């Protein structure tokens, strides 16, 4: 299985030694979100991953917070799910961290409303989805009534 990041790299021909620092990116890892303790575990894992990728302190906090919001959404609204961490690299050679948060819950009926601040059906401030979108560089969501929800967010390092 190839990382999405490796596709973009491959399409540019052979590896560029000047860009890589010799280390291969870690393999993607999945974490279950079934209990409240799992939320803490996810936060730990994401924090460690942001350090590994080389994010600064503010970016680390952004990504961990976004992960916390999304994992909590999956736990509260999706009846549990998984968080998968991936380590993509963009065509310019920047490293990134991608979170894929999936649940098999009832799905989001009105996505636009869910992305509006203050919209909540659970215990938060209703900033989960919209907030995660603002904290990350890339955001996409696939959902529908009865289909579960998959949110994919990515943040890139500055250089």
């Amino acid at each position: 299985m190839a990382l999405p990041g490796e596709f973009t790299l491959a399409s540019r021909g052979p590896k560029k030694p000047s860009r890589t620092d010799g280390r291969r990116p870690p393999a993607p890892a999945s974490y279950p979100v079934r209990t409240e303790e799992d939320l803490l575990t996810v936060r730990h894992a994401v924090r460690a991953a942001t350090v590994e990728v080389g994010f600064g302190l503010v970016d680390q906090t952004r990504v961990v917070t976004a992960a916390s919001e999304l994992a909590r959404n999956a736990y509260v609204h999706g009846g549990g799910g998984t968080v998968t961490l991936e380590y993509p690299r963009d065509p310019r050679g920047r490293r990134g961290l991608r979170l894929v948060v999936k649940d098999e819950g009832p799905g989001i009926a009105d996505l636009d409303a869910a992305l509006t601040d203050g919209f909540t059906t659970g215990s938060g401030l209703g900033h989960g989805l919209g907030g995660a979108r603002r904290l990350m560089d890339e955001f996409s969501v696939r959902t529908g009534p009865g289909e579960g929800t998959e949110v994919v967010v990515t943040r890139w390092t500055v250089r």
Partner: protein
Amino acid sequence: MRERLTRALHERGDEIADRWVELQMEQALLDTDIGEAELREEADALIEALVPGLQSGVPVDRVVTSSPGLHEAVVGLSMRRARAGATPTATSLAVLALKEALLKAVQRDTRDAEELFASAVFMNRLLDVAGALSFETYVDGREEIIRRQSQQLMEQSTPVVRLWRQVLAVPLIGTLDTARTQVVMENLLQAIQDHEALVAIIDITGVPTVDTAVAQHLMQTVNAVRLMGADCVISGVRPSIAQTIAQLGIDLSTILTRATLADALAAAIKLIDGPGPDGDEGDGR
């Protein structure tokens, strides 16, 4: 053909490297501080990498890109040129000059016109790829430099200065977009923590226009400062900007604003020495 070239590289490696360096010096387009010694080092490395590349058996026009050592040598050379400020033309020409140096070496071994022609074609196919790769790397390298410089410029152009005990100021110059706002917030909040500052003055004298987006970014910064437990004063609000803000219906009413930095400093000192920012009056002040 490969054997002939490999042999030439083996037997006349030094000669080729010399000639190549010479050609590059002659081109004089290389108006940089890359010295002869460095050029020679590059030449040796590249020529050394060419031999295993040629022996690998891949089609000639893919030798350069598929041989790791060779690829690295070309990329490294181009990157150094990009960093040293050479022009892209000079960079490509430098790589292509190797053709001439190689051909000259082959010429010493054979006088057969047909063979020489075949050698020339072979070298063209081999090294045109290197020229293209060099150009591409050069462009990438410059882009990387530009990206890094603009980041540095952004960080340097938002200095946080200490104006008074527990009063900091950030003079903003230019537009306030999202990236800039993030840098300003990061620098300002860190400085507030370091200096235990109670008031931060954001001076927008150098901000040409304030639209809704800029106002939103200002609000974000003010909110972040308040979350830290400090307060904010915005100074340098020119009449034209005040009008724009009013016309756009932007609500900055919760923020203390002043026309000049001096007024803002006076207001800041009052905030500190007067009743605390939390309004704990009752101490007879």
